[in-house]
């Protein structure tokens, strides 16, 4: 069966047979970069369309349906429009920072792609501190947002950026604790180890209620971290017009937009890896036949299905709930999520030490 693993393996063997190791590695790097950029573009197009379709269905509408069959080329047309638009820079803006900010946000999103296992043995970089790397790099994105808000020299942008700063810094904590529960259970920070530990069942099912709580906390925290409704205070359309990207237009705006969706994809991919077993197929106890059938589905499909399920969940939140107020947002974190996640971590540690999980 043709799998992503065999493709990468043959490519690598062929490259190392043909060229010296240094050149082969360089070519591999170029291929990976090209693939990553392609993935970005495709994900951006697909996720924006998906969001619009989900929103439309929830809002008893049809959604985009004019460009191409069922409107599938709508986002491509939108991208074309954004590329052709002039990227305005306000007169009073700090021009260097203003133009730099979207790229910082974008780069952070790209860096996060490295340790994600898309399929069995299909990973850019299986770093041994994968989870730590993710949580540390993802917190960098706030710098880009603050930079954009400050450099725009617009009061709405500034307010949005400051809100975003407070929000991301606080929600990092619960997201970190939720991730830590899995690290405690697995005993490793490496992504491949975490996936391998879920071979006989996903942590969501193995780890009793504490892991389910951790999963819920994780989803809430990453929704906040990616500035998605109901925590979209940084943008807060009805309050701050567009928040930190009020002054951006054209492709610079598109980069922010793209980065938002890429971030959603990444946090959902990490969520899927940690709690839903990444590319691991669904295995149930001793049902050998069932497990065999499940094994026939390619691992990349498993990964994508889980990720998109989580993405759908986050979109579902967005189109159902009203937005929180800024002080309520921080209340929710410091008064509810943080105590619960601390207590939860304690429970999980007890479970892990006593070996009470399956």
């Amino acid at each position: 069966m043709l799998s992503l693993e065999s493709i990468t393996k043959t490519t690598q063997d062929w490259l190392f047979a043909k060229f010296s190791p240094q050149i082969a590695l360089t070519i591999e790097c170029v291929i990976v970069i090209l693939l990553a950029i392609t993935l970005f573009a495709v994900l951006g197009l697909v996720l924006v369309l998906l969001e619009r379709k989900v929103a439309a269905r929830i809002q008893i509408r049809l959604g985009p349906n004019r460009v191409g069959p069922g409107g599938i080329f709508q986002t491509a047309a939108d991208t074309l429009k954004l590329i052709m638009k002039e990227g305005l820079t306000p007169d009073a803006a700090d021009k260097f920072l203003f133009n730099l900010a979207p790229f910082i946000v974008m780069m952070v999103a790209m860096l996060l792609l490295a340790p994600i296992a898309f399929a069995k043995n299909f990973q850019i970089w299986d770093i041994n501190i994968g989870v730590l790397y993710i949580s540390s790099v993802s917190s960098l994105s706030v710098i880009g947002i603050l930079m954009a808000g400050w450099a725009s020299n617009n009061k709405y942008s500034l307010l949005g950026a400051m809100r975003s700063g407070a929000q991301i810094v606080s929600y990092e904590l619960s997201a970190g604790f939720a991730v830590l529960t899995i690290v405690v259970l697995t005993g490793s920070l490496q992504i491949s180890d975490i996936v391998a530990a879920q071979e006989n069942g996903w942590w969501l099912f193995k780890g009793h209620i504490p892991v389910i709580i951790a999963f819920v906390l994780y989803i809430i925290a990453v929704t906040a971290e990616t500035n998605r409704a109901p925590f979209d205070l940084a943008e807060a359309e009805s309050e701050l017009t567009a928040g930190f990207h009020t002054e951006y237009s054209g492709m610079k705006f598109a980069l922010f937009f793209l980065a938002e969706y890429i971030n959603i994809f990444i946090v959902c991919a990490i969520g899927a890896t940690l709690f839903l077993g990444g590319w691991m197929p669904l295995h149930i106890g001793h049902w050998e036949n069932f497990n065999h059938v499940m094994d026939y589905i390619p691992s990349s499909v498993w990964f994508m299905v889980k990720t998109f399920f989580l993405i759908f969940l986050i979109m579902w939140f967005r189109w159902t709930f009203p937005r929180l107020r800024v002080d309520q947002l921080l209340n929710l974190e410091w008064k509810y999520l943080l105590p619960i996640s601390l207590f939860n971590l304690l429970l999980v540690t007890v479970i892990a030490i006593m070996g009470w999980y399956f």
Partner: protein
Amino acid sequence: MFLKDYISEVYNGVSSLLKGMRKTGYYFTHSKEIITEQYPDNRATLKLADRFKGEVVMPHDENNEHTCTGCTACELACPNGTIKIITKFDITPEGKKKKAIDAFIYRLEMCTLCNLCVAACPSDAIKMAPNFEHSVFDRSKLTKILNNPGSKIKEGIE
């Protein structure tokens, strides 16, 4: 006590959120609830209410005759000067002069579609038509002459 309140608060909050998600989830999975009207595509089947006030028209019968006597009641009733009537004098076969309209000028761009002219008309010469696709490339096309060229007043209308 504090802990009990805390837990019930969290429980009530989460359950209210889930209730909302169930509602939106219901609509997500039931595509028959979609109410979008695909307007330019459904023009053939689109039916407006018969009373819809789209624009003022002057109905003519098959002999190209209307019932407007040129009394200017509609012009007086109009609150914003949309209607202008230019009259002329026809010579009837008996040799008598008879007042008739030369042009019934109607400026759609000024019309607020209030129906006061139709209500004021003593001989039911004008009525509201359910047309709504009024956009044109030139504003002057919105100034219309409602009586057809060569049209006459119907016999017996005074």
